[in-house]
């Protein structure tokens, strides 16, 4: 018998990959969005991102300490949750609210289920939903990007839309649905929505930055293209139909895709592997569900942005989807 020889199960080699590298990839992919947030919302962006990340990490540490579990911070998943939450809250949100949101996201969204891999709902979206429920006013108070001249007139009382200085494109689209006239004016926002020079949540405004990050994740094969494609395609088709029906009341589908949380959802939130289905078919069902529910909320619901609820609802049915989309072996079902 030899000494210092390990005996274990095959395979004996493995790809140089860990949960940490997967999470690190997501963080790298979020860098453009963070830079865009910093560019448009200046110091507020830095404060909120730092607050969310620190409180998320601290909460995870505390939860592990209470449960007497070994430390799980090195997988970086708390950092990812913190960043995504920070990017999906309004720039003017007070720091204390951001702290509450992050703590809730980690403690109730993740740790209470048993930590990473066991949570049913996307932790960042749980935190955001909690903030929306508790501090509705704060969560819908938008600030104008710092790059826009603040001397320009603010929203006029007679509902005349003054581009760029009003709330968010989606808030306008709600207005347009009510008045059934102004959708075409809102459509002029598309360029601003692409660069990010519109009101909105911290990291959701810049289409360009989010696309860059999404592309990185796809190239690194950290995420599958199924969910982003399904979300964007279903939302585009839904919005396209409404647009064709009445272009005066409904904004263009492209603006729907580029504004609100649609892109960050398609690439970073809905693709969270823990809370999304496992199989390709399941991913398509999940993605179509997210896209469709988002558009239903945006067009029929009261709330301007629907991404958060769409993701949470589809998270809830993920186990069902997994059960329905059972894989059949390559050789067919065995004859029992």
């Amino acid at each position: 018998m030899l000494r210092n020889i390990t005996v274990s199960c095959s395979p004996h080699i493995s790809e140089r990959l860990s949960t940490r590298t997967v999470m690190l990839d997501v963080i790298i992919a979020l860098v453009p969005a963070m830079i865009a947030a910093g560019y448009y919302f200046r110091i507020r962006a830095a404060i909120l991102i730092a607050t969310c990340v620190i409180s998320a990490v601290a909460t995870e540490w505390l939860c592990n300490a209470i449960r007497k579990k070994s430390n799980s911070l090195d997988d970086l998943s708390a950092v990812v949750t913190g960043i995504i939450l920070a990017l999906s809250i309004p720039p003017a949100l007070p720091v204390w609210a951001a702290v509450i949101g992050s703590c809730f996201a980690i403690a109730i969204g993740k740790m209470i289920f048993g930590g990473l891999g066991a949570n049913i709902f996307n932790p960042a979206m749980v935190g955001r939903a909690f903030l929306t429920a508790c501090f509705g006013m704060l969560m819908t108070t938008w600030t104008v990007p710092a790059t826009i001249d603040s001397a320009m007139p603010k929203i006029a009382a007679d509902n005349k839309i003054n581009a760029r200085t009003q709330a968010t494109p989606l808030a306008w689209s709600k207005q347009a649905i009510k008045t059934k006239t102004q959708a075409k004016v809102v459509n002029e926002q598309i360029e601003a929505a692409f660069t990010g020079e519109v009101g909105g949540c911290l990291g959701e405004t810049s289409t360009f930055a989010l696309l860059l990050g999404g592309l990185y994740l796809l190239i690194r094969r950290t995420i599958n293209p199924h969910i982003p494609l399904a979300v964007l395609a279903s939302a585009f088709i839904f919005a396209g139909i409404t647009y064709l029906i009445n272009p005066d009341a409904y904004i263009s589908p492209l603006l729907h895709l580029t504004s609100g949380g649609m892109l960050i959802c398609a690439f970073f939130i809905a693709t969270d592997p823990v809370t999304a289905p496992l199989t390709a078919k399941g991913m398509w069902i999940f993605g179509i569900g997210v896209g469709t529910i988002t558009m239903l909320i945006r067009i029929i619901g009261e709330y301007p942005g629907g991404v958060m609820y769409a993701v949470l609802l589809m998270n809830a049915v993920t186990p069902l989807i997994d059960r329905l989309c059972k894989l059949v072996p390559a050789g067919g079902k065995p004859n029992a």
Partner: protein
Amino acid sequence: MKINTKGRFTFPGGTHPPQSKELTSESEIRLGPASTQVAVMLSQHTGAVCQPIVKKAEQVRAGQKIGDSNAFVSAPVHSPINGKVKEIALQSHAVLGRSPAVIIKADSENNPLKQPVFGKFTGDFNEGKYSAEQICTAVREAGIVGMGGAGFPTRVKIEPNPRLPKETLIINGCECEPYITCDYRIMLEWTGQIIAGVKLAKKASGCSKVFIGIEDNKPQAIEVMRKALKETGNDDIKVVAVKTKYPQGGERQLIKAILNKNVPTGGIPPMIGVVALNVATAAAIAEAVVCGQPLTHRVVTVTGEAIANPGNYYTAIGTTIGELIEFCGGITQKAAKVVLGGPMMGIATADLNAPITKTSGAITVLTKEQIGSAKFARRQTACIRCGRCIEVCPENLNPTKIAHAVKNNFLDVAESYYLNACTECGCCSYVCPANIEITGYIKTGKILLARQKKKMPE
């Protein structure tokens, strides 16, 4: 004219581990060590265990049959050397388990090393003078089993069966497992012998089509085989270059790649009219039929970063692993794992007294760097349901679901996710970012399930 050796055919799923074949791919097949003692396992194959037909202290010749069985699915074993039976005792083996072995002490004189017989096969080999029945009998008497790893008795495979007529013969020269090069060297050096074996197998099985599948990371082997077939006028035997991807050399995956047919789950290739043989098996068939020599030696690749002099050796079956490793200069200080077979499907062992068997293609000694620190420490984290294991699974299973069902002792759930369809190729464990031993759980689950169904003793 440049022959195109780029593979176009493959199967869905799979992964690309580092090849690491350069350690031994250029080393010619050399004669292995002259053992003073060999231990020939009586069960080196799938099927019934052989009964010893020699007694303690009996003198045996090289090539003499020393164990046989009346069962249909079985293969006799032979002595590789001249010597005296020391004892018949239980021997542990990492791959085969604990089973009886005939231990033979070599005569100190008159015990020449067996030479390979490839020189006897020239281009004009004609299988016409052997009848199908003759071939089958010779294959059975020579104790030939699948030398790629499964060890299924070859006679049972090639013998015509009226219920399952065979059409296509597939010769497996993929060798997708990293590090191993024994089949590659055989294809380069024993080309004529392989072709003779293929023709004999074709005749015996009555197949009309023959394909030789070789991964396109071995362009030299593809060219050599194509050239040899062309020169000998065997245009009906086609060499198919397949994509380099693990586990391309899996029987089911190779059939999928070449014929685009799936072997039924839980079924065997003859169900779709296919016989699949390894190149080394084909060479052994030729030797058995033409030279009447049983399977007592095989080429073993001794490799890995922790082996002093890696190489390919024509070794007597029954030689201990330790002896073969010593013959290659021993293992270095860095050695962390000794694996029988390659790093993806091989079995790790710490017992160097285990003998080489008909199915041992390689001994791989890995260092800690090759294994990777996470894998070495066997540090597992929680499954993040990333789905990579599903993407790479060549059998389109849900490995993480099966593994976690087994872990939580829900064998019925594991079975409902087709636990037994797993070929244990190891792709899922290889790609898992959480470093979960998915393959290990599945293997455990199979054993537990078999026990539950009382197919296997406790």
